């Protein structure tokens, strides 16, 4: 205990000293030709897409690199009134969970679909840390197509990392909890009753559909980050974990006692065989599976009721613990798949483990003992070596295509480049300030594209014009094409980025969805042409089948709606040209507006709260006569006998 306090005090002093340095106005000298290297001339494209997690905004944002220009925010786990995601009738089911409609989340990590360990540009996956979920985003439409809730999980942090051929993404529990089938236990029985799980979610190779294939039952430790193996380690997945002390209170101190925590190595191929052979236990659970159909333009929720649980205490030889110093956070596998880098947040070294040595130790059954019935390997037996004195507070590591690793150091605010084979530090650059994650394009794959490393910093301080107490989040782009890293650019980001991926634009840009063909629109309330525009009353529900085209809405005069009615505006955009969305908004809408892409149908539910005539209009500037794109709905008192009537362009 004393030792720990001493260590923490020392850490504080170092932070204070570093802080002092920073406040002396170091601007972070950038290379002389930096401007040229990040300049993307008007009308030309960036070389990379950078998909950046949104943290507490629950979304994913997309930037171009090297310019740092923001291109889009993709709504994933949070409602987005800007385009109606989570408000339109079609998208509400996307945010359904076993807790009901959850309109927000905390989005930490993303991964790109892979073929043979390389980015293939088909899908992006995202995790929700708070209410445990994973999402699949289509990279042709840049839309969230699927969200799967994870049962038996108290928080989904080590997710959605992916295997080499997109066989599985994983979901590891940050908070251990009692399992869903015996939820009510005293907290002090933590060690006996709380469990972590590592879920393996299979991906349909053609359509991308997700399925919870199996869960691995683990002791009550906190899984932090994870990576799949590559090449020789293809069959394995590695999860870092902390709180091997299994503390359930004041974790800051109580979970920092042990000299070493673990990296959990799971042979997912073997686990898969166990699951397929019916060796798992089928647990009764309930979780939401939400799917957006791009033909009906509508999401539906399916309730799933089963999860296959594999217990490594019972089913032997597929899970092992590797001891790893001081609360490991990052757990990253190099491009060859031979080395696993653990980053102990509180460690003074970076241990690098050898997959070949691990295989040998397992074959020789050379264990130091067991932890909760699972074999523990010997640190020295599986260690390739340690990077000595790399910096303070190592968090995450990415790789280039020349055998180098780039590790972020939160406490000492720097990126350190080191050689994976020789373990020697090659270069270090300061970041402004307190870097969390970092990203090299393709830096988590078998074939990194290299060129840049991007720092996603946790503290902004003086880097941008002040904007009150809350400041823009700060990302920084460094050139890594030479031996020395060179700072090129600061660019602000939204939300609070954690992990990010960058992918060559050429893998995505030419297959972008431009329109939804009207012929294929299978929405139940579509109006394919103005001849099908109409207003239909069903009890107190009024369905308006509306069309939008530059520059009018049909119908645009509607009467016969009464107080107490629920009005569904089903708006079909009749345009069939790229970049011509229409918007739709009604006065007093307590929800949002909606944006409707060309050929799409979207629905806004609107409940009148008073008698009167209510304007509605297009919110997305579409043409020279956009201001004229409007209409009126007359709302009469409840029980009124004003007949239902609708029209567009009747003679005045």
């Amino acid at each position, binding site marked *: 205990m004393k030792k720990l306090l001493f260590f923490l005090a020392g850490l504080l002093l170092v932070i204070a000293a570093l802080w002092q340095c920073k406040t002396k106005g170091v601007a972070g000298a950038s290379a002389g030709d930096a401007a040229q290297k990040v300049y993307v001339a008007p009308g030309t494209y960036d070389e990379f897409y950078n998909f950046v997690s949104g943290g507490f905004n629950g979304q994913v944002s997309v930037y171009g690199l090297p310019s740092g220009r923001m291109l889009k925010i993709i709504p994933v786990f949070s409602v987005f009134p800007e385009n109606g995601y989570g408000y339109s009738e079609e998208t509400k089911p996307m945010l359904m969970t076993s807790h009901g409609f959850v309109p927000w989340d905390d989005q930490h990590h993303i991964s790109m679909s892979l073929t043979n360990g390389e980015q293939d540009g088909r899908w992006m996956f995202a995790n929700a840390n708070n209410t445990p979920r994973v999402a699949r985003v289509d990279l042709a439409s840049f839309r969230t197509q699927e969200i799967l809730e994870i049962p038996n999980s108290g928080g989904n942090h080590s997710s959605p990392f992916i295997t080499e051929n997109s066989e599985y993404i994983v979901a590891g529990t940050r908070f251990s909890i009692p399992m869903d089938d015996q939820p009510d236990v005293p907290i002090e029985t933590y060690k006996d009753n709380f469990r972590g799980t590592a879920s393996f979610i299979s991906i349909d190779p053609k359509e991308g559909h997700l399925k919870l294939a199996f869960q691995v039952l683990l002791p009550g430790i906190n899984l932090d980050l994870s990576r799949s193996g590559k090449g020789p380690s293809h069959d394995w997945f590695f999860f870092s974990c902390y709180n091997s002390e299994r503390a359930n209170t004041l974790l800051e101190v109580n979970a920092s006692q042990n000299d070493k925590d673990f990296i959990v190595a799971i042979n997912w191929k073997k686990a898969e065989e166990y699951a397929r052979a019916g060796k798992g236990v089928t647990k009764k659970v309930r979780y939401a599976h939400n799917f957006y159909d791009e033909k009906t333009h509508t999401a539906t929720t399916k309730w799933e009721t089963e999860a296959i649980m594999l217990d490594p205490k019972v089913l032997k030889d597929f899970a092992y613990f590797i001891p790893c110093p001081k609360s490991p956070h990052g757990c990253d596998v190099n491009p060859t798949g031979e080395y696993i880098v653990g980053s102990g947040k509180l460690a003074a070294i970076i241990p690098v483990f050898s997959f070949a040595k691990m295989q040998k130790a397992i074959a020789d059954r050379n264990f130091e003992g067991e932890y909760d019935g699972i074999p523990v390997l010997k640190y020295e037996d599986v260690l390739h070596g340690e990077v000595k004195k790399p910096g303070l507070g190592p968090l995450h590591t990415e790789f280039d295509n020349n055998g180098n690793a780039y590790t972020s150091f939160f406490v000492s605010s720097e990126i350190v480049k080191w050689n994976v084979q020789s373990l020697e530090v090659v270069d270090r650059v300061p970041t402004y300030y307190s870097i969390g994650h970092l990203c090299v394009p393709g830096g988590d794959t078998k074939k990194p594209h290299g060129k840049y490393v991007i720092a996603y910093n946790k503290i902004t301080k003086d880097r941008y014009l002040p904007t009150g107490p809350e400041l823009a989040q700060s990302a920084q782009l460094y050139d890594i094409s030479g031996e020395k890293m060179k700072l090129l650019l600061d660019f602000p980001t939204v939300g609070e980025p954690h992990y990010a991926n960058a992918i060559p634009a050429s893998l995505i840009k030419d297959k972008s969805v431009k329109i939804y063909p009207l012929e294929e629109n299978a929405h139940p309330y579509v109006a394919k*042409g103005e*001849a*099908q525009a109409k207003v239909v009353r069903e009890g107190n529900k009024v369905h308006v089948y509306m069309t939008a*085209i*530059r*520059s009018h809405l049909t119908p645009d005069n509607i009467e016969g709606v009464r107080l107490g009615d629920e009005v569904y505006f089903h708006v079909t955009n009749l*345009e*069939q040209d790229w970049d011509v969305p229409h918007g739709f908004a009604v006065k007093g809408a307590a929800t949002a507006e909606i944006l409707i892409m060309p050929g799409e149908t979207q629905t806004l539910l609107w409940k009148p709260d008073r008698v009167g005539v209510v304007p509605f209009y297009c919110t997305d500037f579409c043409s020279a006569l956009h201001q004229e794109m409007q209409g009126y709905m007359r709302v009469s008192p409840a029980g009124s006998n004003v007949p239902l009537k609708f029209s567009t362009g009747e003679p005045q």
Partner: protein
Amino acid sequence: MKTWYSALLLFVFALAACGGGDTPKKSSAPPAPSPEEQMLAEGKGIGEVKFVELKIPLEAERVSRGKAIYDMKCSACHKLDDKRVVGPGWKDVTKNRKPEWIMNMITNVEIMLEKDDEAQKLLELCLTRMPNQNVSIGDARDVLEFMRANDGEK
């Protein structure tokens, strides 16, 4: 369509070659118009549609398919009488425009608005750029047949 285009090119070349053989070349002779310029000059517009064969009587199947496409993708802006709403009404369009012009306007509207004088005059009048409604050349042919029916052809 491509073969037709090549055939036209060959034809133009052949003509040029003939001319060269019969009379001494004059440096002041205007260059032969490009196939594109020739199309524009003939009032056929510009695009992949170089020649349309019209049949009499009308092809009934085309007319009904053309009407369905009109209802879905065109009717919001074009009425069947001579009244302008967003774009001009369709009455007599087949009498005033060559069939090639009509089909090129439907299938190649961006370039038409950039290069064809008649298309530009319409934009000045209507002030809304006619959208690309993602109509294939085959579908545009059906729409043309429906226009002919609308203009009273049998």
